[in-house]
């Protein structure tokens, strides 16, 4: 079965530290990849997405992610985090042949001022 793994359940960083959140998926075919963020008290919203083309995609608020097909990975990065990045981050995968989106269990990021 399709699955999405997020390795870090809870990450605590100081402001200005660099961030990398891992995401791996199990499907071997063509996929679309997403990172969603949920700020405290707010709805889930899209950070960035990859459908095809350049495997390094840039999203909002300085986030980027790199799709490495050989590693089935789509890790999220940010060079310098801010207190306002404190949120829950979800990786999601959608197979190009299906309707279902598969979400990881999420990573809670706490940024300490």
């Amino acid at each position, binding site marked *: 079965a399709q699955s*999405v793994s*997020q390795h870090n359940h809870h990450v605590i960083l100081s402001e200005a530290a660099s961030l990398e959140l891992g995401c791996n998926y199990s499907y071997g075919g063509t996929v*679309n990849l997403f990172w*969603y963020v949920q700020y405290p008290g707010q*709805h*889930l*919203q*899209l950070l960035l*997405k990859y*459908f095809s083309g350049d495997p390094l995609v840039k999203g909002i608020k300085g986030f980027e992610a790199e799709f490495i097909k050989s590693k089935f990975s789509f890790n999220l990065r940010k060079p310098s985090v801010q207190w306002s990045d404190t949120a829950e981050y*979800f990786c*999601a995968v*959608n197979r*190009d042949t299906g*309707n*279902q*989106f*598969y*979400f*990881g*269990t*999420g990573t809670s990021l706490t940024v300490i001022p």
Partner: protein
Amino acid sequence: GAGVSQSPSNKVTEKGKDVELRCDPISGHTALYWYRQSLGQGLEFLIYFQGNSAPDKSGLPSDRFSAERTGGSVSTLTIQRTQQEDSAVYLCASSLVWSNEQYFGPGTRLTVT
């Protein structure tokens, strides 16, 4: 403009009762998804509607769960004979086409006592 809305925001019900959860998607969005998020879990796909096509019900966990979408807009998720394990946040999302960005609602927190 208006985003995805869901009602009620919170619902407490007794075990064995039926509940109905409502989702109003963004106007013009043809795709609509229902997800369930249990404590400490990722988002679990439940059902997908796309235009007038037959819905993808492959994620519904049991025959106690059903959903309909009237007139291609509002959707209702019904859970019959609720059980304690049904307690979760139920999220609705809509998008223009299945592979595009999903816009999430605030969710309905269901507690079965």
